[in-house]
């Protein structure tokens, strides 16, 4: 092996090791330099007790890294595809009805709702049996 090859090999080894160390440093494996405080942030204690009812959507375990916790759509339990047809004010057509009753016009009228206007998708099929009303349609009017 010539002296030039030896030098080239040594340089390659140094470069490789250097890149490896830099990569590990960047990945945080070797820790961060003094003054970088993120890795020292306290974390939540590990929970040991059983889970809540996962069938009930709502609160979702956060990422733990500072990013917001995902929130289920319509956290208030309402289906916001509908508004009051009279004045476009917001109402709470429930995602589910008490006792598992179907959320239909009969239930809504019994619960005090007036005519509704579809502002999104008629997810509750309030247009009638088997049908969905297009956006802008007034449903449960009679």
């Amino acid at each position, binding site marked *: 092996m010539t002296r030039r090859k030896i030098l080239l090999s040594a340089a390659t080894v140094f470069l490789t090791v250097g890149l490896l160390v830099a990569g590990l440093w960047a990945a945080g494996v070797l820790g961060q330099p003094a003054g970088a405080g993120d890795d*020292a942030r306290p974390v939540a204690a590990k929970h040991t007790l059983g889970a809540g009812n996962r069938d009930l959507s709502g609160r979702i*375990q956060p990422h733990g890294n500072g990013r917001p916790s995902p929130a289920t759509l319509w956290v208030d339990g309402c289906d916001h595809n509908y508004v009051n047809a009279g004045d476009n004010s917001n109402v709470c057509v429930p995602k589910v009805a008490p006792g598992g009753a179907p959320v239909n016009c009969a239930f809504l009228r019994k*619960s005090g709702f007036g005519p509704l206007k579809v502002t999104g*998708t008629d997810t509750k099929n309030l247009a009638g049996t088997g049908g969905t009303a297009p956006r802008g349609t007034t449903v449960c009017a009679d």
Partner: protein
Amino acid sequence: MTGPGKRRRTGRRRVLAALLATAAVQLVAVVVIAPEPAKAVTCAPEEWAGDYFANPALTGPPADSRCDGTIRFDWGETGPGTGGIGGTGYSVRWTRNALFAAGNYTFTATADDGIRVYLDDAPVIDEWRDQGASTFTATRPVAAGTHKVTVEYYQGVGGGLVRAGYSGGGDPGPVPPPPPGGCTGGCQGSWQVLPYQSPVRSVHATVLRTGNVLLVAGSGNDGAAATNNQFVSKVWNPTTGEFVDVPTQEDIFCAGHTQLPDGRILLAGGTLEYPTPTSNYKGLAISYIFDPMTNTYTKIDDMPGGGHWYPSLVNLGDGSVFATGGLNENGSGNVAVEMFDSRKGQWKPFNEVPQTYFYWGLYPNMVLMADGRLFYAGTHTFGNALPNTSGSEIYDIATGTITDVPGLRDIDFRDQGATVLLPPAQAQKVADFGGGNTYSDLGPTSHTDVIDLRQQDPQWTAGPDLPAAKMYVSAVILPDGKVFETGGAKHNYSEYAVHEASMYDPVTNTLTPMPADPLARMYHSESFLLPDGRVASIGNNPATGAFDLGISVYSPWYMSRPRPAITAAAEQFDLGSTQNLAVSGNIGRVTLIRPASVTHQSDPNQRSVDLPITGTGPNISVTVPSNPNIIPAGYYMMFAQDMNGVPSVAKWVHVG
């Protein structure tokens, strides 16, 4: 000597002269410009007194001294910005004398570079060396009483970072005796529906130190009002029935709110956007201070952690306000913890507040414990318990740690149940009443659970069942030492309203049925204590979108009895002070009740603090607790209760 040698010698002389001149200038500069040695500071009991040194060895007089609410600083390479201290070669010594309850305490410190922690001058953590950011913990048994905690820190080169604290501290003091007397007949009280209605959708209610009540709708859950920038607030005088309009610039519907130490009201968060077929409610980061003397809002800085729709605000012993929870400006769960510095009147920078990135949900009911930690009681608005938790936790603000608290029943059915720190606050007992789940077709719970936070490892225990299962429950501390629970529904439709109320006795752990509010009180309803001892209930927003503007008022049994009176007292009660009161009646108990600031049946700061009495007759003395976590600063309603159990009307005093 001639030639080059002489020139070199002359040159050296010039260099020497220049050095001497520079040294002389620096000496003069030091003599003339150096700051006066810092004077010792007097800090509040829960604050740290910090001496800042312009050297890394804590030697000589400090360059500056100041009070720090917490030890949590990421100074980087800029340094603490005090006493002319730069980014390297400095040190700090913090001390605090605090009341401790007996038990094991965990001390935690993170530093770059050296850190030492002492308890009563005995080392607990000693890691005094150059190092990157490193965390150390140590656990020590601590006897009950006052102890001195010292934290020493130095910064060599590079970036500076220090955090230190401990779990525990803060003696609640002895448990006061039970209230005297009590009702023996005709104890039901009565409701009155007022002949006038509220001119505002009262989603938020705050009792002011004037005796008036701030009622806030913002857009009031009316998307059309939000679109048209129609935001409403009114100040209600419950004595005269008058309402005064308060100009409201932004949509503070669904903000959090509480009284500040000076009696003004902090409102934080609000509604950026109503839900659509494809999106959630979105939260605002705005905050306002309401002045009850001028009935005006002043806009202050935004919360640094982003939008909060449904945050909870909790007053801390050092006068600051903790805020967390809710949905952010994108409709996702905001995991930020915010801290309002009441002395500066602004929010602390995000990186100066301990962050765990835990998600506390919407309007989480959190109670300040005697040791300064926060107890999350598991009740909230919407949703269920966070997966992999027992539904109730203790959050240590100083160390940023969270500990599960077991034993709460129906953890996924505590949506809009009531939580109350039972009277007296010194007993450190918390009760949860009822709750449901808006995502479930199942009915709510009737369970009441109680927990004693004075225990080393507190656990919930079963209390008496409510007479009816319900959510949307309000719980109001009365001046006779009882808790009045009222309102609620099985679901948010009028046909499911639960017209039931009962009186909870913390001494006997029993519920006694009481007359029910004639009006339905479901979603967006509140109940709160008035200064004369009555309870007002307001608001009702069923799923149809309607909003009941009726106001009902409950008069407990004592309203029909001869009342004792507080005829004279100081306006200012310092912590730990003894106060003289002139009274009429045979007084057996004096209590301070924090005025309500409630929304969605949630008032995390509701508390009643007993003041031990000495003397009898028309002139008595009371002792104010010295622990600010028992009685956070602010205006309180002071009631004197006679030996028959009948309380006076309130006299307002400022504490802290």
